[in-house]
């Protein structure tokens, strides 16, 4: 086990980009969030099989003139653990979340900042970590 305390605010590596990078009024695109989960670790999926397991949730703040979402989550992987009576649905490796973006026809041109958070609960091979959130931020240029 690492001698450095696990920094839950940095545990997942997040990479964000917009497709396309610039949007015109009345145009659609998407925000892509790629999440690198540490090797041999997993996080709960967006729809875990038990009610008290913490779902992975990408929440994004509203922006005037822009409709964001709903977020599309990847398919979960079925994983059986000796200690669990149910098959868990988890994410491992690198996953990709997408949030559709639609710029309103009347949206004013200029820069916007997409902000939000990714909430998750992960486990290492040795233990499970408490639920945590990491900030999500991306620049959107309109016009």
């Amino acid at each position: 086990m690492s001698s450095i305390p696990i920094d839950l605010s940095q545990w997942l590596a997040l990479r964000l980009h917009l497709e396309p990078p610039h949007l015109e009024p009345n145009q659609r695109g998407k925000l892509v969030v790629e999440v690198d989960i540490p090797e041999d670790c997993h996080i709960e999926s967006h729809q875990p099989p038990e009610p008290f397991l913490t779902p992975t949730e990408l929440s994004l703040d509203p922006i005037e003139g822009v409709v964001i979402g709903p977020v599309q989550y990847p398919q979960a992987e079925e994983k059986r653990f000796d200690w669990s009576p149910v098959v868990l649905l988890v994410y491992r490796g690198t996953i990709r979340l997408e949030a559709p973006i639609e710029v309103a026809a009347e949206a004013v041109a200029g820069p916007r900042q997409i902000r939000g958070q990714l909430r998750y609960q992960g486990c290492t091979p040795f233990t499970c970590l408490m639920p945590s959130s990491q900030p999500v931020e991306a620049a959107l240029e309109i016009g």
Partner: protein
Amino acid sequence: MQLEYDIEVTTVAPTAPYRVGDQVPDFTLPTLDGGEGRLSDYRGKVVLLVFTATWCPYCGAEAPFLEQEIWQRFQERGVQVIVIDVKEPPEMMRPFRDRYGWTFPVWLDQTGELGLTFAPQKEGLPPEVAIINAHFILDTEGRIRYREYLNMERFDARARTIAAELEKVLVQS
């Protein structure tokens, strides 16, 4: 049910945790039902202390065994199960307790201070994580007779281990 609640990680390192043979100092905690739980009220009983949290997948897996295989089997033989929920508000624990039909007391360590005194020093882990799913068996005098931190054993097997340890302490008490 999902309540969004981020747990603040303490920066205080745990002291050396209690060992087998140590006397656990008396403590009080608020209970899930709005009262106050005091450890010394259970002197004369063998006490199983279990540290838990609703977010912990192992704890959910263990929850039915605690009620059915431990509490229902041992309560009439002088054993008291007490679950201590670490750093969560009661509204998170209540539906968890109800789902698993727990009928033993649930106490709330909302600051995490009590858990800190029991937490093992595990490199790389904050004490709020290291203490979760730890089990301590206290004899009738309040001395620790058995302790176990998280392991990956199946909970039916683990319940048998805990039951066997309770049997030993009951015989010795």
